[in-house]
């Protein structure tokens, strides 16, 4: 197939990029999604707030200040600033598309916090998907799993993948390629192993494919060591912000004491760190104090969670209880790599171009701009779309020669032909999660790691990668699972090297290096980037980029 623009991933950023291109040009767009874009990815169940919004009294500048402070100074200010300037406009666009936003008697949005507004986002994916489906120049390929980019002479010219519904391999060429896939979950042993192992914060089906494709193609990546670990309701892993911000309640330990501020400024990672430490000290379990809220408030929480994390409402009501009767226990999740929350992802310029020619990255896979959330992903989608429209050129798209493309097709088909292996796909997944948990700072080690452990982790991940060629696929779902585990292993490889490279502890829990337990501003106010080449992750350091700089790649 051939198109002007190929968008890989039909989530928030991908759909909004496609919409922008469709409404501002005549370019033809193909969106691929490995599920059905109506409910794919991290917004499948919904979302109940827009958490990146310039509220009353705030400005784009104060938003950047906040993100910088929360991320201990290591952000791409230029990227965050460009996002901040577009947040309110895209939120209005979201409302125009049909997302209900709570308003006061004056018709103004009701704020949940300085940078958060209340919505009903249960339908956010169906609404976004509906908007792109209506466009004549957008084609959607659902249930197509993209495996790798097609690269010719250091230029990305398309992508290759396979259908999950029929025996078909897709070879798609495009003038511009935009990666808008999700981040990576399932790298570490989860909170609830065995029966409920996928009851995690982030979509378990976001397995880091977009990162892994870029890594294998030699794209520069940034800040993988800034992991994201969510503070969530225990067991259900439902968001805590709805309660914490909704009724301005506090975190308390088992003794009923408010504890967060004992540990310093209550940044996102310090709320988590303080909870982990209280548990280590024997002061747990920790809770959000909700006992005594009104019945009306409780009913509203039941509704709010049904629109986003229905398991939490089920958990309360199936036990005939609720937050007015009992405090909500909280805990940290396993670590994730997700650029919508932290700074990990592709190293992009101000137009969201990656270091690979013709390849853009937006949303969860674009690095440098933490706390972009849903609305920030929309802005990034728009920025990339406008750059694509302004720079796309007429002309024929180069193609891979037959030998090169056949090699890629054979690689995808290969897993059906391997003899039965000793190890199942699930075994390899569990082994990877165990290695990462124990040696690369997982839950069981209170997120801490050191050099000796990371060396063991790196060796273990390489050994698992060498086993992959012996794994067999019996059907298309198995084939998907194999490529998902390959992608996760590549993300692990890069993550481990990044964790090792930052010889300080910058973000409690997110990056807790016990060899260097303190923050070191003198030496480490810089980005850790990497490029994968010939099996090795090569680390490079880059200087911080300020907010008024329009950073463009020079190499």
């Amino acid at each position: 197939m051939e198109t002007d623009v190929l968008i890989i991933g039909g989530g928030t950023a991908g759909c909004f990029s496609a919409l922008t291109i469709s409404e501002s040009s005549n370019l033809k767009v193909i969106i691929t999604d490995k599920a059905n874009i109506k409910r794919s990815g991290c917004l499948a169940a919904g979302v109940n707030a827009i958490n990146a919004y310039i509220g009353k009294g705030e400005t784009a500048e104060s938003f950047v200040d906040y993100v910088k402070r929360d991320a201990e100074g290591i952000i791409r200010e230029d990227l965050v600033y460009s996002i901040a300037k577009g947040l309110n406009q895209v939120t209005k666009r979201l409302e125009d598309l049909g997302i209900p936003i709570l308003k006061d008697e004056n018709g103004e949005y009701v704020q949940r916090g300085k940078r958060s507004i209340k919505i009903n986002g249960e339908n956010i994916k169906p609404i976004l998907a509906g908007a792109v489906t209506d466009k004549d120049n957008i084609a959607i390929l659902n249930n197509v799993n993209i495996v790798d980019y097609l690269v010719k002479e250091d230029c990305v010219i398309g992508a290759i993948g396979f259908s999950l519904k029929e025996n078909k391999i897709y070879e798609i060429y495009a003038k511009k390629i935009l990666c808008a896939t999700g981040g990576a979950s399932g790298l570490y042993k989860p909170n609830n192993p065995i029966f409920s192992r996928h009851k995690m914060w982030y979509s378990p089906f976001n397995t880091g494919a977009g990162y892994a494709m870029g890594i294998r193609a030699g794209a520069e990546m940034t800040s993988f060591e800034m992991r994201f670990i969510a503070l969530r309701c225990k067991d259900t892993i439902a968001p805590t912000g709805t309660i914490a911000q909704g009724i301005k309640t506090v975190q308390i330990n088992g003794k009923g004491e408010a504890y967060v501020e004992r540990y310093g400024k209550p940044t996102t990672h310090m709320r988590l760190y303080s909870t982990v430490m209280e548990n280590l000290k024997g002061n747990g379990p920790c809770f959000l104090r909700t006992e005594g809220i009104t019945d009306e408030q409780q009913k509203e929480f039941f509704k709010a969670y049904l629109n986003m994390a229905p398991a939490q409402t089920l958990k309360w009501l199936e036990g005939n209880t609720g937050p007015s009767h009992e405090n909500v226990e909280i805990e940290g999740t396993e670590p994730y790599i997700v650029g919508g929350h932290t700074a990990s992802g592709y190293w992009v310029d101000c137009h969201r171009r990656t270091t690979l020619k013709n390849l853009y990255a937006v949303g969860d896979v674009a690095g440098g701009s933490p706390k972009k959330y849903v609305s920030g992903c929309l802005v990034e989608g728009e920025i990339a779309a406008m750059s694509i429209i302004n720079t796309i050129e007429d002309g024929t798209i180069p193609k891979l020669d037959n030998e090169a493309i056949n090699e890629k097709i054979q690689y995808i088909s290969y897993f059906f032909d391997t003899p039965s292996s000793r190890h199942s796909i699930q075994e390899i997944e569990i082994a990877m999660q165990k290695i990462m948990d124990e040696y690369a700072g997982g839950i069981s080690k209170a997120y801490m790691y050191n050099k000796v452990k990371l060396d063991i982790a790196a060796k273990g991940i390489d050994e698992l990668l060498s086993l992959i060629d012996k794994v067999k696929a019996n059907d298309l779902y198995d084939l998907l699972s194999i490529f998902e585990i390959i992608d996760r292993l590549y993300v692990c490889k890069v993550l481990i090297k990044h964790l090792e490279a930052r010889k300080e502890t910058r973000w409690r829990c997110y990056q807790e290096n016990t060899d260097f337990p303190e923050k070191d501003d003198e030496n480490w106010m810089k980005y850790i980037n990497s490029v994968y080449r010939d099996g090795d992750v090569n680390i490079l350091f880059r200087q911080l980029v300020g907010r008024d700089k329009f950073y463009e790649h020079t190499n």
Partner: protein
Amino acid sequence: MSIQIDKNKCISCGKCCDICPGNLIDKDDENKAFIRLPEECWGCTACLKECPVEAIKYYLAADIGGKGGYMYSKNHGEYMDWYIVSADHKKYCIKINKKVSNAY
């Protein structure tokens, strides 16, 4: 495990197979929907919302505090009715107006 599909109620429409973000639901030899790996389910409930005959129930496994209760939904266009049945068979119904924002 997280969802259960009632084969007797399933009308083989395939909507749940199409919508699952994890590609976890397929049809069996009798053309009825089944979840291939229940322990891989995220619990997003996309399938419940698509099912036109309320054949799919969502429940929590014991390891995350499930006590035997379950939930299912009825979609009425602008409204969504959620039914939650507790372990002791008490039934709750919560009506959600999709056009109205959450209060929190």
